[in-house]
Protein backbone atom coordinates (compact mmCIF):
# COMPACT_ATOMS: atom_id res chain seq x y z
CA UNK A 1 0.00 0.00 0.00
CA UNK A 2 2.74 2.42 0.95
CA UNK A 3 4.53 1.75 -2.35
CA UNK A 4 1.40 2.52 -4.36
CA UNK A 5 0.69 5.79 -2.57
CA UNK A 6 4.32 6.83 -2.71
CA UNK A 7 4.56 6.09 -6.44
CA UNK A 8 1.36 8.02 -7.10
CA UNK A 9 2.69 10.98 -5.13
CA UNK A 10 6.02 11.08 -6.93
CA UNK A 11 4.72 10.51 -10.47
CA UNK A 12 1.83 12.92 -10.26
CA UNK A 13 3.82 15.63 -8.55
CA UNK A 14 6.32 15.52 -11.39
CA UNK A 15 3.43 15.67 -13.87
CA UNK A 16 1.97 18.63 -11.96
CA UNK A 17 5.00 20.78 -12.57
CA UNK A 18 5.67 19.63 -16.14
CA UNK A 19 2.21 19.44 -17.70
CA UNK A 20 1.57 22.21 -20.18
CA UNK A 21 -2.18 22.23 -19.88
CA UNK A 22 -2.98 24.08 -16.71
CA UNK A 23 -6.26 22.34 -15.94
CA UNK A 24 -4.56 18.95 -16.17
CA UNK A 25 -1.87 20.17 -13.80
CA UNK A 26 -4.61 21.01 -11.29
CA UNK A 27 -6.09 17.53 -11.67
CA UNK A 28 -2.70 15.91 -11.07
CA UNK A 29 -2.32 18.07 -7.98
CA UNK A 30 -5.65 16.65 -6.77
CA UNK A 31 -4.27 13.09 -7.18
CA UNK A 32 -1.16 14.00 -5.19
CA UNK A 33 -3.22 15.42 -2.35
CA UNK A 34 -5.56 12.42 -2.24
CA UNK A 35 -2.58 10.03 -2.14
CA UNK A 36 -1.15 12.04 0.74
CA UNK A 37 -4.43 11.57 2.54
CA UNK A 38 -4.02 7.85 1.91
CA UNK A 39 -0.62 7.94 3.61
CA UNK A 40 -2.24 9.55 6.64
CA UNK A 41 -4.82 6.78 6.71
CA UNK A 42 -1.99 4.21 6.60
CA UNK A 43 -0.40 5.90 9.59
CA UNK A 44 -3.78 5.78 11.39
CA UNK A 45 -4.20 9.54 11.61
CA UNK A 46 -7.82 9.31 10.58
CA UNK A 47 -8.76 12.81 11.67
CA UNK A 48 -5.87 14.39 9.81
CA UNK A 49 -6.67 12.34 6.70
CA UNK A 50 -10.26 13.54 6.77
CA UNK A 51 -9.07 17.14 7.11
CA UNK A 52 -6.68 16.61 4.22
CA UNK A 53 -9.40 15.23 1.96
CA UNK A 54 -12.03 17.85 2.75
CA UNK A 55 -9.89 20.95 3.09
CA UNK A 56 -7.03 20.35 0.67
CA UNK A 57 -8.50 18.07 -1.94
CA UNK A 58 -11.99 19.48 -1.62
CA UNK A 59 -11.44 23.14 -0.86
CA UNK A 60 -8.13 24.37 -2.19
CA UNK A 61 -8.18 22.40 -5.45
CA UNK A 62 -11.70 23.55 -6.25
CA UNK A 63 -10.64 27.14 -5.57
CA UNK A 64 -7.60 26.75 -7.83
CA UNK A 65 -9.74 25.26 -10.60
CA UNK A 66 -12.21 28.15 -10.30
CA UNK A 67 -9.44 30.68 -10.62
CA UNK A 68 -7.98 28.82 -13.61
CA UNK A 69 -11.34 28.93 -15.35
CA UNK A 70 -11.67 32.64 -14.57
CA UNK A 71 -8.24 33.61 -15.80
CA UNK A 72 -7.35 31.42 -18.76
CA UNK A 73 -8.83 29.50 -21.66
CA UNK A 74 -9.08 25.75 -21.29
CA UNK A 75 -7.72 24.80 -24.68
CA UNK A 76 -4.76 27.13 -24.36
CA UNK A 77 -1.38 25.52 -23.80
CA UNK A 78 1.28 27.15 -21.69
CA UNK A 79 4.35 28.14 -23.61
CA UNK A 80 7.36 25.95 -23.13
CA UNK A 81 9.80 27.34 -20.57
CA UNK A 82 13.14 28.02 -22.21
CA UNK A 83 16.09 25.74 -21.66
CA UNK A 84 18.10 28.50 -20.05
CA UNK A 85 15.67 28.43 -17.17
CA UNK A 86 15.08 24.68 -17.01
CA UNK A 87 18.71 23.64 -16.61
CA UNK A 88 19.63 25.70 -13.51
CA UNK A 89 16.29 24.90 -11.90
CA UNK A 90 16.70 21.21 -12.59
CA UNK A 91 20.21 21.14 -11.19
CA UNK A 92 19.19 23.10 -8.12
CA UNK A 93 16.30 20.74 -7.42
CA UNK A 94 18.21 17.53 -8.21
CA UNK A 95 21.25 18.63 -6.23
CA UNK A 96 19.18 19.54 -3.22
CA UNK A 97 17.26 16.28 -3.39
CA UNK A 98 20.47 14.23 -3.68
CA UNK A 99 22.10 15.96 -0.71
CA UNK A 100 19.01 15.55 1.43
CA UNK A 101 18.47 11.90 0.52
CA UNK A 102 22.15 11.11 1.16
CA UNK A 103 21.87 12.71 4.59
CA UNK A 104 18.71 10.76 5.38
CA UNK A 105 20.29 7.48 4.32
CA UNK A 106 23.40 8.10 6.41
CA UNK A 107 21.55 8.88 9.58
CA UNK A 108 20.68 5.97 11.85
CA UNK A 109 17.13 6.31 13.03
CA UNK A 110 16.12 4.28 16.06
CA UNK A 111 14.76 0.90 15.13
CA UNK A 112 11.13 0.78 14.21
CA UNK A 113 8.97 1.00 17.28
CA UNK A 114 5.62 0.80 15.59
CA UNK A 115 3.70 -1.40 17.89
CA UNK A 116 0.84 0.90 18.65
CA UNK A 117 -1.41 0.96 15.60
CA UNK A 118 -4.42 2.31 17.42
CA UNK A 119 -6.31 5.21 15.96
CA UNK A 120 -5.96 8.62 17.50
CA UNK A 121 -8.89 9.40 19.69
CA UNK A 122 -10.88 12.41 18.56
CA UNK A 123 -11.65 13.32 22.17
CA UNK A 124 -7.95 13.52 22.92
CA UNK A 125 -7.41 15.86 19.96
CA UNK A 126 -10.25 18.11 21.03
CA UNK A 127 -9.03 18.20 24.60
CA UNK A 128 -5.52 19.23 23.67
CA UNK A 129 -6.75 21.88 21.26
CA UNK A 130 -8.41 23.81 24.07
CA UNK A 131 -6.15 22.98 26.99
CA UNK A 132 -3.65 25.47 28.34
CA UNK A 133 -1.51 22.89 30.13
CA UNK A 134 1.60 21.24 28.78
CA UNK A 135 0.96 19.76 25.30
CA UNK A 136 -2.06 22.02 25.03
CA UNK A 137 -2.66 24.09 21.93
CA UNK A 138 -5.07 26.81 23.06
CA UNK A 139 -2.87 29.75 22.05
CA UNK A 140 -1.99 28.51 18.51
CA UNK A 141 -5.67 27.72 18.06
CA UNK A 142 -6.66 31.30 18.84
CA UNK A 143 -3.86 32.71 16.70
CA UNK A 144 -4.86 30.59 13.72
CA UNK A 145 -8.46 31.70 14.05
CA UNK A 146 -7.40 35.34 13.93
CA UNK A 147 -5.21 34.55 10.92
CA UNK A 148 -8.14 32.94 9.12
CA UNK A 149 -10.37 35.90 9.88
CA UNK A 150 -7.72 38.31 8.60
CA UNK A 151 -7.24 36.22 5.45
CA UNK A 152 -10.97 36.19 4.82
CA UNK A 153 -11.33 39.97 5.20
CA UNK A 154 -8.22 40.57 3.10
CA UNK A 155 -9.37 38.29 0.31
CA UNK A 156 -12.77 39.98 0.14
CA UNK A 157 -11.25 43.45 0.05
CA UNK A 158 -8.67 42.49 -2.58
CA UNK A 159 -11.06 40.75 -4.93
CA UNK A 160 -14.03 43.11 -4.82
CA UNK A 161 -14.61 45.60 -7.57
CA UNK A 162 -13.26 49.08 -7.12
CA UNK A 163 -15.69 51.92 -7.56
CA UNK A 164 -13.37 54.20 -9.51
Amino acid sequence: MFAIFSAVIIIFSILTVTSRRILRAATYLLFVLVATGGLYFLLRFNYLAAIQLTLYAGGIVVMIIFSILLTSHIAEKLEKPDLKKIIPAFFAAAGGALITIATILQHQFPAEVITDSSRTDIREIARSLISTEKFGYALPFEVISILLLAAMVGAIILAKKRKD
Partner: protein
Amino acid sequence: MFEGVPLTWFLITGTIMFFVGIYGFLVRKNLITILMSTELILNSVNINFVAFNKILYPDHLEGMFFSLFIIAVAAAEASVAIAIIINIYRRLVDINVEKMNEMKY
Protein backbone atom coordinates in the same frame (compact mmCIF):
# COMPACT_ATOMS: atom_id res chain seq x y z
CA MET B 1 -0.53 -2.80 7.22
CA PHE B 2 2.41 -0.44 7.14
CA GLU B 3 4.63 -2.42 9.45
CA GLY B 4 8.03 -2.90 7.89
CA VAL B 5 7.99 0.45 6.14
CA PRO B 6 10.93 2.28 7.67
CA LEU B 7 10.86 5.98 8.39
CA THR B 8 13.42 6.55 5.64
CA TRP B 9 10.92 5.82 2.89
CA PHE B 10 8.49 8.40 4.16
CA LEU B 11 11.28 10.96 4.36
CA ILE B 12 12.46 10.19 0.83
CA THR B 13 8.95 10.55 -0.55
CA GLY B 14 8.64 13.89 1.20
CA THR B 15 12.03 15.03 -0.08
CA ILE B 16 11.27 14.22 -3.70
CA MET B 17 7.91 15.96 -3.49
CA PHE B 18 9.53 19.02 -1.90
CA PHE B 19 12.18 19.39 -4.57
CA VAL B 20 9.72 18.78 -7.40
CA GLY B 21 7.78 21.69 -5.90
CA ILE B 22 10.96 23.81 -5.86
CA TYR B 23 11.58 22.96 -9.53
CA GLY B 24 8.05 23.96 -10.46
CA PHE B 25 8.38 27.16 -8.47
CA LEU B 26 11.51 28.14 -10.38
CA VAL B 27 10.43 27.08 -13.87
CA ARG B 28 6.77 28.00 -14.16
CA LYS B 29 5.64 31.39 -15.35
CA ASN B 30 1.91 31.30 -14.76
CA LEU B 31 0.98 32.55 -11.29
CA ILE B 32 -1.52 29.78 -10.62
CA THR B 33 0.99 27.03 -11.37
CA ILE B 34 3.41 28.72 -8.98
CA LEU B 35 0.70 28.60 -6.33
CA MET B 36 0.25 24.88 -7.04
CA SER B 37 3.98 24.28 -6.55
CA THR B 38 3.72 26.03 -3.19
CA GLU B 39 0.96 23.65 -2.18
CA LEU B 40 3.22 20.71 -3.10
CA ILE B 41 6.00 22.08 -0.88
CA LEU B 42 3.71 22.60 2.12
CA ASN B 43 2.19 19.15 1.69
CA SER B 44 5.57 17.40 1.63
CA VAL B 45 6.48 19.00 4.95
CA ASN B 46 3.26 17.62 6.41
CA ILE B 47 4.25 14.08 5.44
CA ASN B 48 7.54 14.48 7.31
CA PHE B 49 5.89 15.78 10.47
CA VAL B 50 3.32 12.99 10.54
CA ALA B 51 5.81 10.20 9.85
CA PHE B 52 8.20 11.43 12.56
CA ASN B 53 5.34 11.67 15.00
CA LYS B 54 3.97 8.19 14.36
CA ILE B 55 7.21 6.28 14.10
CA LEU B 56 9.37 7.94 16.72
CA TYR B 57 6.82 9.17 19.28
CA PRO B 58 3.63 7.19 18.85
CA ASP B 59 2.15 8.29 22.16
CA HIS B 60 2.32 12.03 21.41
CA LEU B 61 0.34 14.10 18.95
CA GLU B 62 2.65 17.05 18.31
CA GLY B 63 3.36 16.30 14.65
CA MET B 64 -0.30 15.94 13.93
CA PHE B 65 -1.07 19.35 15.40
CA PHE B 66 1.74 20.94 13.44
CA SER B 67 0.32 19.44 10.24
CA LEU B 68 -3.14 20.67 11.19
CA PHE B 69 -1.90 24.23 11.63
CA ILE B 70 0.14 24.07 8.42
CA ILE B 71 -2.99 23.01 6.53
CA ALA B 72 -4.89 25.97 8.01
CA VAL B 73 -2.12 28.40 7.06
CA ALA B 74 -2.00 26.92 3.55
CA ALA B 75 -5.72 27.47 3.15
CA ALA B 76 -5.43 31.10 4.24
CA GLU B 77 -2.46 31.64 1.94
CA ALA B 78 -4.22 30.10 -1.06
CA SER B 79 -7.31 32.24 -0.59
CA VAL B 80 -5.36 35.49 -0.36
CA ALA B 81 -3.12 34.50 -3.28
CA ILE B 82 -6.10 33.74 -5.48
CA ALA B 83 -7.69 37.07 -4.57
CA ILE B 84 -4.47 38.83 -5.58
CA ILE B 85 -4.25 36.83 -8.82
CA ILE B 86 -7.81 37.72 -9.80
CA ASN B 87 -7.16 41.36 -9.02
CA ILE B 88 -4.03 41.34 -11.19
CA TYR B 89 -5.90 39.60 -14.00
CA ARG B 90 -8.59 42.26 -13.88
CA ARG B 91 -6.02 45.01 -14.32
CA LEU B 92 -3.49 43.47 -16.69
CA VAL B 93 -5.50 40.67 -18.42
CA ASP B 94 -2.50 38.38 -18.06
CA ILE B 95 -1.05 36.46 -15.15
CA ASN B 96 2.41 35.80 -16.53
CA VAL B 97 5.00 36.76 -13.92
CA GLU B 98 7.34 38.33 -16.45
CA LYS B 99 4.79 40.90 -17.52
CA MET B 100 4.23 42.07 -13.98
CA ASN B 101 7.04 44.55 -13.67
CA GLU B 102 5.19 47.50 -12.26
CA MET B 103 3.43 47.69 -8.94
CA LYS B 104 1.51 50.89 -9.47
CA TYR B 105 0.41 52.92 -12.45
